[in-house]
């Protein structure tokens, strides 16, 4: 009993620890990355005892200290209680969604089989959408409680944008649910361990040498869904090109214009935690999650013949490592995107969401359904 509880607590702690630290590291990567793209040197002032070489570590320590020692300003005409509550509501959903994301298959400890996922819910993906849908409150309430016209405009933009793209995001995932036939993220990740060749019907034998060797990852079976999901997820994180709620050049800083100190740090960390969550979702739904192609529970089995057997612990470590690498790749992709493209205009954001992503998502669902029925 106690061991089970300890394992669950350890998993929850590990996931929170990783996500929060990765959020901090991403803050540094964003600064250094933007400097690299814009041909600057970037954050190099934080040095302890003249030792600036460890830029990452120093920035990681210096940033929170700077934020936490600043004055916590609440606008006199604002709503003090909601102004304090809003950053918590912005950070909370990004952290709790990680509970259902599997970061590995199973870990075998003696006679115990530990599922490498904090909570295995049979509603998996719906839980993620439910929590993500609460993320908008942090913006709206923070914007309203600041009693500032700029922040209110940012909040109104944010709520409209997030509701619009939530629909496209939800619909883009339907195809994945139809292909793998489950809502559980661990089952979706396991389903991506097969090869496309295993799914192909007998009558499609001519495709076998062409695509049969590919792993049955979501991105190969549902390429359009991945594009739609990616765009919608970036819009949900409210980053360039969808940073209308923030819009520095028009709204100063949008919904968090009246925030400083620790509360701003929470908005800031929440944004990076959202990036990590979005990256983990892209990995789990479309890029095999913790799967490495041809790696089964006891080693590699290559389709062209040949096997390479491995110890269970090595397999687990490889899987967790693969998951981490994939998540890091998608985090980096989102940061690269931010410094590569300009911001949309507000009507363009709405047009893209409702008139392009939404119909395309419906089309994807229809085509997927027809193909599944035709293949049966």
């Amino acid at each position, binding site marked *: *009993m106690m061991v089970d509880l300890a394992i669950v607590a350890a998993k929850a702690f590990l996931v929170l620890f990783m996500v929060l630290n990765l959020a901090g590291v991403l803050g540094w990567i964003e600064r250094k990355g933007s400097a690299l793209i814009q041909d600057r040197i970037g954050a190099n002032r934080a040095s302890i005892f003249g030792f600036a070489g460890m830029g990452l570590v120093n920035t990681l320590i210096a940033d929170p200290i700077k934020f936490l020692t600043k004055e916590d300003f609440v606008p006199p005409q604002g709503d003090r209680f909601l102004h304090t509550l809003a950053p918590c509501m912005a950070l909370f959903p990004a952290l709790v969604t990680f509970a259902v994301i599997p970061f590995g298959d199973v870990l075998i400890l003696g006679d115990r089989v530990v599922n490498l996922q904090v909570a295995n819910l049979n*509603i998996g993906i719906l*839980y993620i*959408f*439910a929590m993500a849908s609460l993320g908008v409150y942090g913006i709206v*309430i923070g914007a309203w409680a600041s009693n500032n016209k700029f922040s209110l405009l940012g909040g109104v933009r944010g709520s409209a944008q997030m509701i619009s793209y939530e629909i496209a995001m939800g619909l883009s995932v339907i195809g994945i649910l139809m292909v793998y036939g489950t809502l559980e993220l661990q089952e979706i990740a396991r389903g991506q361990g097969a090869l496309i060749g295993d799914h192909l019907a007998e009558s499609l034998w001519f495709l076998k040498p062409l695509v049969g060797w590919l792993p049955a990852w979501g991105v190969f079976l549902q390429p359009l869904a991945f594009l739609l999901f990616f765009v919608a997820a970036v819009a949900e994180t409210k980053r360039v090109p969808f940073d209308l709620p923030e819009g520095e050049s028009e709204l100063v800083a949008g919904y968090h214009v009246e925030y400083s100190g620790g509360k701003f740090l929470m908005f800031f960390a929440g944004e990076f935690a959202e990036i990590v969550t979005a990256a983990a979702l892209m990995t789990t739904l479309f890029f095999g999650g913790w799967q490495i192609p041809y790696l089964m529970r006891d080693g590699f089995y290559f389709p062209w013949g040949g096997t390479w057997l491995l110890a269970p612990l090595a397999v687990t470590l490889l899987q967790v490592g693969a998951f981490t690498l994939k998540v890091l790749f998608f985090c980096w992709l989102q940061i690269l995107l931010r410094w590569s493209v300009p911001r949309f205009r507000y009507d363009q954001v709405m047009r893209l969401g409702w008139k392009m992503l939404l119909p395309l998502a419906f089309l994807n669902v229809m085509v997927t359904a027809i193909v599944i029925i035709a293949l049966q």
Partner: protein
Amino acid sequence: MSNLQIMSLSPLIFYLLAALLVLAALMVVFQRNVVHSAMALVAALFLTAILFFTLHAPMVGVLQVLVYAGAIMVLFLFVIMFLNPSALEERRTVWWGCGAVAAMLLAAALIAVTSAGNALENFMIAGEPFGSPEMLAQSLFTDFVLPFEIASVLLLVAIVGAVVLAKREG
């Protein structure tokens, strides 16, 4: 923790949740600030969802958060923020009277139902698949497919009606 221990804890969790839920519901009514009322309603809906989770209906609980707390209340807040009702409406005694009478009728009905004797005795303990997405989908698309389709047509009519009304204004 064993199942037995969890079961002995569940009344405690239920009463805690219920107390918070009643508190949030009261705050919806008694807060004078509209945004505070709306946020109390969000809290009440969220707590109801947790209540569904403790009743082994995670699907209903998640849909409660997704639809009510996550979408409908955001639209409420959207409208409130646009209209910005900073001037508080004065209390109207007539409406308070009507509300009190309605609340008392509801309370009387609830007491009558719960004290009717066998209402709470003939319960069945739900099995494991109860409330799972598979079971919900099974009953929605077999036993209740007509009501389901009628409800979706009704929603479609409402959307089309809203679009037509909005276009006429412009």
